[in-house]
């Protein structure tokens, strides 16, 4: 069943929606990366919640003028207007008052959403009830969609994707290197405006598929997941868009075989699945790697400190240190160094003395920057340099 869906065997509409969702995820993953890098990820939450009153007003206006209130294109235009207003409100509260941006985001998203709910009940009160289908915008619904709507979604997702790809360069420059952007004659607020326009486009296109409550997930989860795989911003950008695209495509496929469930949550959980894999198993930053590295690091620190204490005849205060020394055979149970322990301790002390000399000498500044209390100096300096340092500090203390 799922395989059928993935291979576009579930009908033309479903295929269109899946392609649309995939492209949407791609665009969202990319736009989201820029938002994420500018630390404004949650602004998109305000934008998406702010669409609700716009959708409702558009419905009312279209009905009042005798048209079909459910026209997707009309509703989306309403959504754009309202979310632009919401964005303006966030900007005003954040810049012109003492409120921080997160407070502004929370205020705007809740108030606009609340007002949207008021308008929805107004629509119900005038007798349209559930036939308006506006509830589908909350959590996304792709079941029983009109051919024209599916086409609209696929086409607008493709357009959004194209726009993000086209604007990739200026956005990258503005996000990673604002100084350069200014020097090269690019206005930073212009890039900001382009970014917000793209985010708005993603949000509005995603309304029908993912829903306005959860569309923010498609903008946030992919870049955060991608961050675990790479430190390099351009890589993050591509990984993020791939993750977003996969989540959209798989989610829409799953949703096609479970038409009773809202589409949005399924897509979000797909994205989260990819995030979870990244979070746990990414080679550098993943939890597994980090935890292992931390324990190794802590062990190294205690071992080094223990050896230094042995070498200088200081008592060892910490149980963990003593345990490690005993286990390595460097000390006996009562803290007395063994012969191997004494030799290793002398070596550690010697290394420490070398480091001190290196770090105090401006000529070795590059090497000194690599000091972390653990690295052997012999890994950092050449043989000749090492000999020079040794010559300065004299023969090892107590060396045979």
């Amino acid at each position, binding site marked *: 069943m799922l395989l059928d869906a993935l291979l576009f065997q579930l009908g033309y509409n479903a295929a269109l929606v899946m392609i649309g969702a995939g492209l949407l995820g791609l665009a969202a993953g990319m736009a989201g990366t820029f938002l994420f890098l500018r630390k404004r990820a949650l602004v998109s939450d305000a934008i998406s919640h702010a669409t609700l009153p716009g959708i409702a007003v558009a419905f009312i206006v279209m009905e009042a003028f005798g048209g079909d209130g459910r026209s997707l294109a009309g509703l989306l235009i309403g959504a754009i207007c309202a979310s632009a207003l919401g964005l303006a409100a966030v900007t005003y509260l954040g810049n012109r008052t*003492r409120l921080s941006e997160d407070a502004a985001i929370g205020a705007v998203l809740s108030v606009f959403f609340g007002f949207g709910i008021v308008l929805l009940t107004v629509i119900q009160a005038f007798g349209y009830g559930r036939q308006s289908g506006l509830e589908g915008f909350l959590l996304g619904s792709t079941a029983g969609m009109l051919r024209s709507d599916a086409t609209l979604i696929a086409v607008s997702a493709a357009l959004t994707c194209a726009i993000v790809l086209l604007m990739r360069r200026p956005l990258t420059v503005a996000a990673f290197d604002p100084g350069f952007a200014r020097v090269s004659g690019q206005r930073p607020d212009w890039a900001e405006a382009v970014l917000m326009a793209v985010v708005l486009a993603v949000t509005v296109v995603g309304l029908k598929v993912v829903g306005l409550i959860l569309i923010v997930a498609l903008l946030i989860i992919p870049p955060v997941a991608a961050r675990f795989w790479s430190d390099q911003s351009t890589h993050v950008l591509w990984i993020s868009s791939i993750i977003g695209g996969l989540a959209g495509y798989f989610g829409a496929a799953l949703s096609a075989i479970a038409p009773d469930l809202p589409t949005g949550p399924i897509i979000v959980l797909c994205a989260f699945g990819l995030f979870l894999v990244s979070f746990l198993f990414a080679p550098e930053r993943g939890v597994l790697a980090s935890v292992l*590295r931390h324990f190794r*690091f*802590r062990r190294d*620190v*205690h071992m*080094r*400190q223990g050896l*230094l*204490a042995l070498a*200088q*005849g*200081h*008592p*060892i*205060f*910490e149980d*963990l*240190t003593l345990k490690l020394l005993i286990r390595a055979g460097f000390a006996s149970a*009562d*803290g*007395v160094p063994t012969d191997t322990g004494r030799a290793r301790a002398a070596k550690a002390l010697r290394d420490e003395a070398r480091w*001190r000399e290196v*770090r*105090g*000498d*401006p*000529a*070795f*500044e590059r090497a*000194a920057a690599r*000091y*972390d*209390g*653990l690295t052997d100096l012999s890994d950092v300096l050449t043989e000749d340099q090492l000999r020079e340092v040794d010559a300065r500090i004299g023969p090892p203390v107590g060396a045979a």
Partner: protein
Amino acid sequence: MTLELVGHSSEQDRAAPLLIRGMTVSYGEKPAVFSADMALRAGEMTAIIGPNGAGKSTLLKAALGIVTPLAGQAQFFGQTLDAVRGRLAYVPQRASVDWDFPTRVIDVVLMGLYPRLGLLGRIRGNHRDEAMGCLERVGMEAFAKRQIGQLSGGQQQRVFLARALAQKADLYLLDEPFAGVDAATEKAIITVLKSLTEAGKTVVAVHHDLATVVDYFDNVLLLATQVIAQGPVEEVFTKALLEKTYGGRLSQAVMPESAVS
């Protein structure tokens, strides 16, 4: 333990206002402080000196349990931190605080009395008088009712010091008390700190202005991730040791005249 306590860990040290042993703190994979030992002398002023990123503030925070060390211990007056918290006063970096917070100068100083007041103890007239007295000592009594956001950097620092005074501590730990303050404030602060040591209190401050070390402090601790040296100013504040501490980062221009050569 069969090992005898040697050298650095004497009887006198063990009752020191602050004794740090083997303190290692790391943010991520690189230690900010590595295996630092430190002992403060009671009734004297000690400066912690070192280049940017040498772990000066981190060392204080680790001693106070604000950051968790990877290894190492801190003792205050020969006891654990929790046993003697009431005898300590900590003055954080001015920049670590949101000065837009809705509160007045006098309210900040009263925070120094909270440990004595408890959760619900009423603030009485004598408490307010005490807080005002602390403000007077730093020359800020006229600003008691001011909003804290309206203060200059130097005034903010003085308010922080007044709050510490209100704690009536025996050991004062200050993080960069002279950073970004005007000359008048610097003078006011050092006067107060000197009066504290004259009254037998102990002061330790993270400090960055090498030019004033000799005038202000009795002891220095030179820190560059590791402790390079510690002791009385006249012994430790030397050109050679400073160069060791700062490495290439200490140009001849900033080498103070006052450094013992």
